[in-house]
């Protein structure tokens, strides 16, 4: 008690007080580091949503975020309360006036992002920051409701980093760490979380039916539509997103036969083609004689929000909740709201409907009254010219497209009331739907049963991964005519058109695959393998595939209980391993080579029962060892001298003697007593 260090004590106490005061946890005030990271997290969330926010809102929120950041750099303190109240009232009102409703995916996410930025305006304390970060994570996740692509998911996962760094910065010691290192703990923990993440993803029981209404009402329909009016397909043909991927059991069909039937359009109202009535669609499929072997293949279809599926011309049979309808298209009882995979068998040579049902024949000949009189007149002239020769009439029509000055043009001029007449005799420019529509019209007018089929044609075949990539830009429409003795025959009038007019803008591919994309598109097609794996492995992992997860291990079907048990067992195993790693004895990292050698020697001696006590200096320790191991006395003495002179004789032990010492330690063997 006689030690007098009163002034030092006072200093230490003062320092301690200061540390207590600056610890954010205690005081609750956000320090600058934490606030910067918080702003960064919110900025990431904003970036993740920026694509579907209205531009004015995106600009306003970005500006607000920037202003708030600048404001708090100069002085601490929240934005004045009045301003906050005004903003909190203004945000919902603005969103309500923009969208008309606060519900739904787009308005909901806009509201959430807005509220998050507003929360930042009043965030002054650690508690606010925690709430804001939690909300950040939630709003980040909601960005995945818009697109589930691999890239977006990766970006969103990366956006967790600033959020985790901000949480870390709320810890009391954060100020002393370097800025770049603020991200390290979060990054490590995210990486280390991989096994548990995969386990959770595989075994968290999926819902086979949603608990409440799934989104979809406000999602713009993409993909091939069941109504085809001039100009409807145009946006689709510009869309480079993936429609489906097809893996074949054997060799892929030749390019000319890659027609995927989606929906058959029976009725023409003068402007648009629409599908047949239920009476035509339902019922047994029309009889089909297959010529040649069937080809089996798996289709992984991206969500279309529609009931129909796509199958290679002509499907024979399908499995997995899919029905083959009367006009040989595939239908599903539920709309395709998630990525699905189904298996189909198709034949490429066939005779479909050798005898045409009179009801169907009537439907396939029906034309609207009072439309397109010039086209009707042209078709009738062919009929009188070629008599009963339907094939000749068909050829005449195709010849018209080939030699009549027709051109393929995605930017087709608009058409008037008599759209077929306008197209055939005036504009003479269009793309697949114009040609398919006009051809079917001419055939019907000439008395040949005809219909229009919408689907996809072409695609990119990947030699590496052996699958066919079909994009929305591969959407296509063609015709089918019924010929006596041949049944329904596929005719693609677009394919005969020679002249192509490309628009200056970046039209992606074309309906009939005539245009070759640039090298960037080629690269994109090749890199699609990754996306395919993502779509099949992750996005397509539904309740059905989950239940078959352990089939290779002899459990054909997993129910919820078994899934829960598997999940719990897996968590226990992984956490057990993690726990063991956390418990692993702390390794003592030697300060330098000399200490490393000394630790090795101490290990060797410890095996002989000579454990160095914490308080023991090297001289005492070696002396004790020499007593305990008299046969090693000489070596130990030399080692002791060497160590003591190296450790205490120099400020930094010289390299060469340390190496010698290290060698001597390695050579040291405990001699047993010789009897």
């Amino acid at each position, binding site marked *: 008690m006689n030690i007098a260090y009163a002034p030092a004590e006072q200093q230490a106490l003062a320092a301690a007080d200061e540390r207590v005061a600056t610890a954010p946890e205690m005081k609750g005030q956000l320090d600058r580091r934490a606030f910067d990271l918080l702003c960064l997290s919110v900025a990431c969330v904003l970036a993740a949503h920026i694509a579907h926010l209205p531009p004015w809102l995106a600009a306003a929120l970005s500006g607000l975020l920037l202003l708030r950041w600048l404001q708090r750099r100069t002085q601490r303190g929240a934005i004045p309360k009045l301003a906050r109240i005004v903003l909190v009232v203004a945000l919902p009102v603005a969103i309500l006036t923009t969208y008309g409703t606060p519900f739904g995916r787009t308005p909901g996410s806009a509201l959430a992002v807005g509220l998050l930025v507003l929360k930042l305006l009043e965030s002054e304390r650690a508690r606010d920051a925690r709430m804001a970060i939690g909300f950040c994570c939630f709003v980040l996740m909601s960005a995945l409701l818009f697109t589930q692509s691999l890239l977006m998911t990766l970006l969103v996962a990366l956006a967790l980093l600033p959020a985790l760094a901000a949480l870390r910065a709320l810890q009391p010691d954060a100020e002393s760490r370097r800025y770049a290192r603020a991200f390290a703990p979060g990054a490590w923990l995210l990486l280390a979380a991989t096994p548990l993440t995969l386990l959770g993803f595989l075994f968290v029981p999926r819902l086979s039916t949603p608990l409440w209404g799934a989104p979809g009402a406000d999602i713009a329909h993409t993909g091939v539509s069941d109504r085809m009016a001039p100009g409807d397909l145009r946006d689709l043909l510009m869309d480079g997103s993936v429609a489906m991927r097809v893996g074949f059991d054997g060799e892929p069909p030749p390019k000319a036969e890659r027609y995927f039937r989606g929906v058959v359009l029976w009725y023409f109202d003068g402007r648009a083609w629409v599908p047949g009535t239920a009476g035509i669609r339902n019922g047994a499929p029309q009889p089909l004689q297959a010529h040649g072997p069937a080809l089996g293949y798996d289709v992984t279809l991206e969500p279309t929000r529609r009931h129909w599926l796509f199958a290679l011309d002509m499907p024979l049979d399908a499995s997995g909740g899919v029905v083959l309808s009367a006009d040989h298209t595939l239908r599903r009882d539920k709309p395709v709201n998630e990525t699905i995979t189904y298996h189909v068998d198709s034949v490429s040579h066939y005779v479909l409907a050798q005898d045409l049902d009179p009801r169907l024949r009537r439907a396939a000949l029906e034309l609207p009254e009072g439309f397109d009189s010039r086209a009707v007149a042209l078709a009738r002239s062919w009929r009188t010219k070629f008599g009963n020769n339907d094939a000749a009439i068909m050829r005449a029509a195709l010849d018209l497209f080939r030699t009549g000055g027709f051109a393929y043009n995605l930017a087709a001029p608009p058409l008037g009331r008599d759209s077929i007449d306008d197209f055939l005799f005036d504009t003479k420019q269009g793309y697949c739907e114009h040609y398919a529509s006009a051809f079917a019209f001419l055939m019907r007018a000439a008395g040949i049963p005809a219909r229009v089929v919408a689907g996809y044609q072409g695609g990119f075949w990947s030699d590496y991964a052996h699958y066919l990539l079909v994009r929305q830009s591969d959407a296509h429409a063609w015709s089918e005519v019924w010929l006596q003795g041949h049944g329904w025959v596929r005719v693609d009038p677009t394919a005969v058109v020679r002249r192509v007019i490309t628009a200056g803008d970046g039209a992606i591919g074309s309906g009939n695959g005539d245009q070759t994309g640039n090298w960037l598109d080629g690269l994109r097609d090749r890199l699609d393998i990754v996306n395919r794996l993502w779509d099949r492995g992750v996005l397509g992992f539904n309740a059905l595939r989950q239940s078959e997860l352990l089939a290779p291990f002899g459990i054909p079907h997993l129910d919820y209980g078994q899934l829960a048990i598997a999940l719990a067992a897996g968590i226990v195993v992984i*956490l057990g391993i993690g726990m063991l790693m956390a418990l692993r004895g702390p390794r003592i990292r030697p300060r330098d080579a000399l200490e490393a050698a000394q630790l090795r020697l101490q290990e060797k001696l410890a095996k002989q029962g000579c454990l160095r006590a914490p308080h023991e200096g090297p001289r005492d320790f070696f002396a004790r060892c020499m007593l305990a191991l008299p046969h090693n006395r000489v070596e130990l003495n030399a080692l002791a001298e060497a160590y003591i002179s190296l450790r205490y004789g120099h400020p930094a032990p010289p390299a060469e003697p340390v190496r010698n010492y290290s060698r001597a330690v390695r050579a040291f063997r405990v001699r047993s007593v010789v009897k």
Partner: protein
Amino acid sequence: MNAAARTWREALISRVERRLPALTRLRQPEPLPIELHRRRIYILPTRSGLGFGVLLAVMLVGALNYQNNSALLLTCLLGATVINSMLSAFRALHGLQLTCIRAGHACVGDPLPLRLEFATPARARAALCLDMDHISHAFSLDARGSETTFPMPTEHRGWNRVPRMRISSTLPFGLFRAWSWITPEHDVLVYPRQLAGPPPPPDEDDGRQRAHGDEDYAQLREYHFGDPLKRVAWKASARHDRLLIRELDAAAHDAPQRFEWNMLHGLDRETRISRLAGWVHEAHAAGRAWTLVLPDARSLGPEADNAHYHRCMTALAVLP
């Protein structure tokens, strides 16, 4: 409301500790060093951790309902990271050793600087928190082990047992708190409260005159060659068989003061002790020598150095 909640919580904790011996066992004082091993580290989610859990549950249900596998993957990733952070919190404490406690000095009511030395095998420990009696203290330790000074609250003089401390960490995200109770078998001495001001120490002139009159030994010193003869204390010299010199007036200004227990009447015991402590403190601060006379007539001094100060304060602190 808050106070009521706190007392309710404390009652609950004490009840739990009564019922669960495993917890109370750790309340027994232990000798140093104390190592935080796996059997004494507890982990529970913090309040924000619970909130985060609810959030994760909402995210999970949403992802499942919308059959959105990307969102589910993200939720799983976040959940797994949160669970991993629990192990992180555990690792922040695991293996930590409290090797030594050194107490400074403080009077009752002032915080006592408690130096806690830790050994941290192999890795640095960041963002630790020490709680004692509603006082929190944040600190970090480097990989070679280091110390921290904790301002321990003091309530009464004399030997105090270092109270139970909670060492905890909410690393890395503040979602889980790992903690361990430490009850070191260590006593610290708390000096009595110092009452300064009036009444001042007994009149200085009085003391000095008495010192002169009685020719107190404390006022005499050995004769050195050159000392004036008129200042030789003849009587005393005769008694001691050698020449002694009486101190000059200038030196008498630094004459030791006497602080006697018996000088203070009409005060209760603690006030008397506090007053004596105050006088000792003032004398020490002014650099003067003093003599302290305790109730059992034991007298300390006269001296003026630090050691004497601490001896006196210790004697006052441990008075029954």
